[in-house]
């Protein structure tokens, strides 16, 4: 006759019982021939299935096929790496070649001299707010200057902007037309 403890057989077989309950069930196994037989049969069955099941191995050609496909994928990957290297080398050569041969000198055009700004042509020390840099001008009658503020915006806002900027605009001389 099955009792409450017999119902724990599956949990015991699945190793799910805690230490206390497992100990109780082991004591039950001593007295319950039915559960003992089931547990023994399951142990035999698990071992039998494991031994029989693990004999199966993949056929050699399965492995060879996998190896071939991996090799193929590797070759493809290497070709891509090789192409990338070639591409990188070609780009490098192109860049070096272009630097060595700058080509025809471009026509002069107006451009602010950003690389090495000229010396300041005017510094407004009275206001201590701006310096003025002269740039190359394509027009002989025009002088182009750039005005750089020397104080931060918050301070500049506090000052009278007209007083600061008017002297700078006076530097612009000539007529672009």
């Amino acid at each position: 006759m099955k009792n409450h403890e017999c119902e724990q057989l599956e949990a015991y077989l699945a190793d799910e019982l805690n230490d206390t309950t497992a100990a109780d069930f082991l004591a039950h196994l001593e007295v319950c021939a039915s559960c003992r037989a089931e547990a023994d049969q399951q142990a035999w069955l698990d071992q039998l299935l494991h031994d029989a099941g693990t004999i199966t191995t993949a056929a050699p050609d399965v492995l060879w096929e996998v190896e071939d496909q991996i090799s193929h994928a590797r070759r493809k990957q290497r070709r891509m790496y090789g192409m990338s290297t070639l591409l990188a080398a070609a780009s490098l050569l192109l860049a070096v070649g272009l630097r060595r041969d700058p080509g025809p000198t471009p026509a002069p055009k107006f451009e602010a001299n950003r690389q090495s700004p000229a010396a300041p042509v005017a510094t407004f020390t009275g206001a201590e707010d701006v310096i003025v840099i002269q740039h190359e001008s394509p027009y002989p009658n025009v002088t182009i200057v750039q005005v750089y503020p020397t104080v931060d915006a918050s301070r500049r806002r506090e000052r009278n902007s007209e007083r600061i900027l008017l002297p700078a605009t006076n530097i612009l001389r000539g007529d672009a037309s």
Partner: protein
Amino acid sequence: MTSARLKRLYLVAAPGSELAARDSATAFSKRVATDQAVDTQLDATLAAHVDSVYRYALRITGNVEQAEELTQETMLRGWRNRRSLKDPTVAKSWLLRIATNLWTDEIRRSQRRPHQLIEPSTIPNPNPKSTPEQQESARQALAALDQLPPRQRQVMHLITIEQLSHAEVAKVLAITAAAVKANLAAARKTLRTQLKDVYKEHQGNKT
């Protein structure tokens, strides 16, 4: 897996020395060499589980040809996604998960019945060193396993034959731990009932 097989796969997976030697001066090729060294190690890790994948594939497909295709596809998919395998110790369950997903997709695509039983010819000959009675018992046990419903069959196979933990099986099959336990209990009960006579015979032979 035999050592010869592992060696063969290792050779296939060896880093491309030609490319590495040619471009060793560049950081690019150094990166390539490092990647390939990592790949080689991972390939050996994956290759060690080919047989497990094949056994599982055979169990769920019930057909040698399909099992071989599924194994190849699984190994290739695993190799392609090898970088996402953070922990090599879980490579086996990771590959089995890939196989499960591929087979699920295949069933969805072809609407194939997943209840196919393994062809009698695909049940392997049990250990030749065992007695004829033991071989017969093993054959009957495997046949009974293959007659279980698909989910119970998968759970039973993964736990009893591949020796995965309940948590690993839950991950492989994307089901809860409770579902694993329920399927396992049902599968064990069915197998015990079906193989009661075989067990009695085994007990009788012992005594």
